[in-house]
């Protein structure tokens, strides 16, 4: 008969094996593509009929598009993505807020003609946008946008994110599930920091869009 410490030690490899199995099984069903394409087209038509810009994230194709009237105004490739929790609903989502907001410069009215004539370039530009941020979409969907880590410190930060993503986020999901609250987390890694900044710029609060497993 095993002693208690030995039994506890035996638990780890078994759980590790379960873990490996669970993570290896793809979370996809059969061929649902025609239905999904049909649903996406119908949902997009409703968005494209309005003059507002909208976004479409195609998870399997790894593409983010900013669109208007059905035309791609800008498109970004996704380097890699991972998800936890419920699938995003197959309908229109709204960007409720972003995790970080760059500070705007306040213009001080000139106190003299000389001061009015001088020009100081103090603008909010693409380079001032964050490249790592979270998009809080309606329905409790969080999209973590991060650039591909290059260099020692970004890689270290990326490792920290890896730990948080694989240990903390599932626990958070479990806690929310027990409280019957919806939770979907998607981490999207973009090829460069500039892509992240451009996505941040292109997605103003309130923009509507679609996230589809296509």
């Amino acid at each position: 008969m095993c002693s208690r410490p030995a039994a506890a030690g035996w638990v780890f490899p078994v759980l590790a094996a379960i873990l490996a199995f669970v993570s290896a099984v793809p979370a996809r069903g059969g061929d649902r593509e025609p239905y999904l394409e049909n649903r996406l087209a119908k949902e997009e038509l409703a968005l494209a009929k309005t003059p507002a810009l909208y976004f479409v994230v195609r998870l399997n194709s790894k593409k983010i598009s900013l669109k208007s009237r059905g035309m791609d105004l800008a498109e970004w490739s996704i380097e890699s993505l991972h998800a936890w929790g419920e699938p995003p609903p197959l309908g229109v989502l709204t960007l409720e807020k972003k995790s970080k907001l760059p500070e705007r410069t306040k213009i001080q009215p000139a106190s003299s003609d000389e001061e009015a004539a001088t020009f100081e370039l103090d603008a909010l530009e693409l380079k001032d946008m964050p490249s790592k941020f979270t998009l809080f979409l309606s329905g409790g969907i969080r999209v973590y946008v991060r650039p591909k880590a290059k260099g020692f410190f970004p890689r270290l930060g990326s490792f920290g994110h890896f730990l948080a993503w694989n240990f903390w986020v599932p626990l958070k999901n479990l806690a929310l599930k027990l409280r019957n609250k919806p939770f979907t987390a998607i981490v999207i890694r973009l090829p460069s920091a500039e892509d992240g900044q451009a996505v941040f710029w292109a997605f103003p609060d309130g923009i509507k869009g679609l996230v589809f497993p296509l």
Partner: protein
Amino acid sequence: MSRKKAVRASLLTLAAALVILEVTAWIVARPKPAAVAEESDPKALAKMKAETEAVAKKIGALAPKSAFIVIDSARNTLTMKTKTKEIMKAVVSCGSGSILEEPGGKRTWIFDTPRGEFLVKSKIVDPTWVKPDWAFIEEGKEIPKNRQDRFETGVLGDYALGFGDGFFIHGTLYSRLLGRSVTHGCVRVGDKDLKAVFQAASVGTKIYIF
């Protein structure tokens, strides 16, 4: 059992409990596929595909039929294009994103270039700038009561394309700042490119700004 062994056993049990909790969380959190009806009937499937194509055509028909303007306010570029080809591309200046508060805090302006779909509402040759209130506040001057005192010539270049709410695509005296976000919301274009845009666009031309 010795005290040391008991502590070790407790720690291992705790660790095992944590692992079990984490594994449970992992299993619960695993991404699930979206619940959709899978169609197995070939006829119904063909019908669905035809419907998708028809909807895609309807979406395609919403795009402008003639040339349109796309302004990327992040990269400060203006592109004139049709559905199939690019006609011209120019470096421009868009809104600075700065904030101006009226002394006394009555009014606030955010100098962003508006985003979305617009259309050219007016085409003006030799435009005169009718300075809005914020321009006087920014310069620390009193807002004039007489409209004539708001007129300023020669600052908007040779042409201007109005797209509503006082926003224009116009020329600039500060061509060295093209490519930077420095305006109060209008889109500044260099002289040569402005002439080309002005000639290619007509009233009703669609403008997409993002």
